[in-house]
């Protein structure tokens, strides 16, 4: 499953880049995120409640940042297991483009794979759910970063 979209953020590219590397911001923006802890350079563990159709499960897993190219972009990837509900893995290539000094366009290309019960029961809902979740993440990210910039 793949999704491509972009989000316009009222902040400079450097500010957006900083937020993309801030676990607190990520935790706030990942839908259903219960906990996010830094475990090493560019490595975090996360607990996320994920719901597709009739299946709702708590996923525990690893989040890794790679291909870092400050302040232009990186790849954020994660994989986690929700026990009997199944597993999910995927990531997003994020690219930042300055529209002006204080407006940045964030482009993202998401690919995701899910397995087991989530796929068996929620197959017809997965694409729409994933699109919705990715949208929610980047929308709240834009908001959070925007609010930060205003506050400064």
């Amino acid at each position: 499953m793949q999704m491509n979209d972009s989000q316009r953020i009222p902040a400079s590219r450097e500010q957006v880049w900083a937020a993309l590397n801030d676990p607190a911001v990520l935790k706030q923006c990942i839908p259903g995120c219960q906990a996010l802890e830094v475990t090493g350079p560019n490595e975090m563990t996360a607990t996320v409640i994920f719901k597709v159709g009739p299946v709702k499960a708590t996923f525990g897993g690893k989040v890794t940042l790679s291909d870092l190219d400050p302040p232009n972009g990186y790849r954020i990837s994660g994989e986690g297991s929700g026990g009997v509900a199944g597993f999910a893995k995927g990531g997003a290539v994020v690219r930042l483009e300055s529209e002006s000094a204080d407006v940045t366009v964030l482009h993202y290309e998401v690919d995701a794979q899910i397995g087991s019960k989530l796929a068996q029961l929620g197959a017809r809902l997965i694409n729409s759910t994933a699109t919705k979740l990715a949208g929610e993440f980047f929308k709240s990210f834009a908001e959070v970063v925007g609010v930060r910039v205003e506050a400064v």
Partner: protein
Amino acid sequence: MNDMTPTREQREAVLEGMGCKRKRVEDIRFTQGKGNYVDDVKLPGMLHGDFVRSPHPHARVKKIDDSEALKVPGVLAVITAETLKTVNLAWMPTLAGDVQMVLADGKVLFQNQEVAFVVATDRYAADDGINKVVVEYEPLPPLVDPFKSMDADAPVLREDLAGKTTGAHGPRKHHNHIFEWTVGDKELTDAAFKKAEVTIKEMISYHRTHPSPLETCQCVCSFDKIKGELTIWGTFQAPHVIRTVVSLIAKLPEQKIHVIAPDIGGGFGNKVGAYPGYICAAVASIVTGKPVKWVEDRIENLTATSFARDYHMTTEIAATKEGKVTGLRVHVLADHGAFDACADPSKWPAGFFNIVTGSYDFPTAHLAVDGVYTNKAPGGVAYRCSFRVTEAAYCIERAMDILAQKLNMDPAELRLKNFIKPEQFPYHSALGWEYDSGDYHTAMRKMMETTGYAALRKEQAEKRAAFARGETREIMGLGVSFFTEIVGAGPSKNCDILGIAMFDSCEIRMHPTGAGIARMGTKSQGQGHETTWAQIIATEIGIPADNIQVEEGNTDTAPYGLGTYGSRSTPVAGAAIAMAARKIKAKAQMIAAYKLEVHEDDLEWDIDGFRVKGLPEKFMSMKDICWAAYNAVPPGMEPGLEAVSYYDPPNMTYPFGAYLCVMDIDVDTGVYKVRRFYALDDCGTRINPMIIEGQVHGGLTEAFAIAMGQEIRYDETGNVVTGSFMDFFMPTAVETPHWETDFTVTPSPHHPIGAKGVGESPNVGGVPAFSNAVNDAFSFLGATHIQMPHDYWRNWKAAKDLGAVA
């Protein structure tokens, strides 16, 4: 004789014998909710087991940690492959000569494969325990597409077979190859194609589906340590085979194993195989010393116990310009999933697929089947059909329509031109079968006349013209299907399961008052054996069917039999019943002769007793003979009146039928309406016309489901995405069309009562009728073959691909 003497008609009516629409005796308990199913078995101290299953289609199992699971209140044990290895049961033999993991041994090969078995005091605790078992997997690349299974770089699925270049059915060509099976004359067939005036070639897929009985697979195992005896209540279509298999693999003496199949809520082939659940429940009972119940849920049933079909059939027909077929060439790529657990007679790796020449007189044919492994659930059972016969019938019936289209001939006319003629029976087919009997032309013409076939074709032509003029968006299809089944496995010369010949059996024991009990080696799962078996006995020995108790499913009391599947019950056990009854009758005749003081040869059978020829008043009823059998037998004769028969059939039986489906499809939405469905079946002698009609209704409904939407589908990463009735089409009364049934009667010449079996014919003939209707509807827009299942979306997509929808 006074006025009270019943007439012959009255005496016959009282018997409710063969030909009578006798009401099903089992329905008295079923309709009152008083059936006794496996889940109704509740024993003191009974435990419950459930599986940890793999989320991955292909992965290495690095570690299984059960420490947290064992802390869950109520959880008593977690059984893994390591546990099973201590009793040499980590792997089990399959019916097809392969081996299958009972629990994941180092690797998982399909999603939802059994990894560990959690045993607890109740089902809830077991499920809580499952959530706490931590399994560490290392995912491996999944192999989903069977067409890529034999690529040079295809992942190795079965590491246990490394270096084995020969399997149960001959040489293996590749690490994911199971067998190649070839039948027929290749040279002659290739020559026929070389000089053919017309040929067609099409890859016809029969998608993976599932029998999905309403009651899932389940068992209760109870091991008595003191007596060393294992009792298994289970949903078994073949209880005796289960007893023998358990004895062989668990090394328990066969007399210490008691297998009981109580009432079964549908089987359709799903309940033939031996599953890890049975083994794990048995081991768990041995380990804990308590009875253990295992009950599959719906997802487990659809995704882990035996699937059906998954045949990809590249089909070619050679013919003359006038439409006379001259050769048939078929190559099948058979997707068997992770283990070859096909439930076929052992020598037949592709079942009886070589019935693929169908009802037609092909001078020559050649068939090759390649079985391959993929990361999918194992199985390959005969879902309401004889072994791979549905696939064969679909293959040839689609191909005949494709040929008709190419020749611009009517498909019914093409069939009539190529049918085996009545005078050709017994007919030897190019692929090796001896068809016992048939009258195809009569059946086909009756179908055409009754349905007004010619008028329907005319209406179709008008509708097509109206569509072309833009006056309607609806297209009309006529699906013709003429099938020949091969059922009643089978003769010991060519049919066995793990070396056990496929006979069947009946034991009849008459009681002094003119009643009796009869036991068979078959097992009804809804077929109504308790009703029909008694009817055969009633006609044979003149005792009312109501006075005959039929009992099946208990291996301690029933004679050994191979069970119920593949429409074998009537052809094989039905024959055994008649033969056992005839033994009873022969002894009865001796008793009657003694009592009537005549020679046996002076007696003639008369409905319900023996009469002295020429002296109508000298008569002894079977009821009185029963009494005499226990109290006044001729000198030197043993008392009692009972008989056993084991019947090894001399040949298969070959039911056939002519079906027509009339369908209208809206091209803009893909929504179809089955306007009419006519099914003419010839199953030889008809034992109970009402039960036959019910069987045909049920079989057609399953055919409708399969052709029009029912599918087990995997995504490209190996997820099975049709794991519930939300996505797996299960028609209810709302979707099911109205069925019209009809019949002709061509008795089987070698069967004692001439019966052929009917339970599965409607599924065999129904699927091509539906699919041909859809393809026929689209043919004038340029379609040659549209793959099943034909759900609304695919119909819409077909219309779009053909340019009928913008």
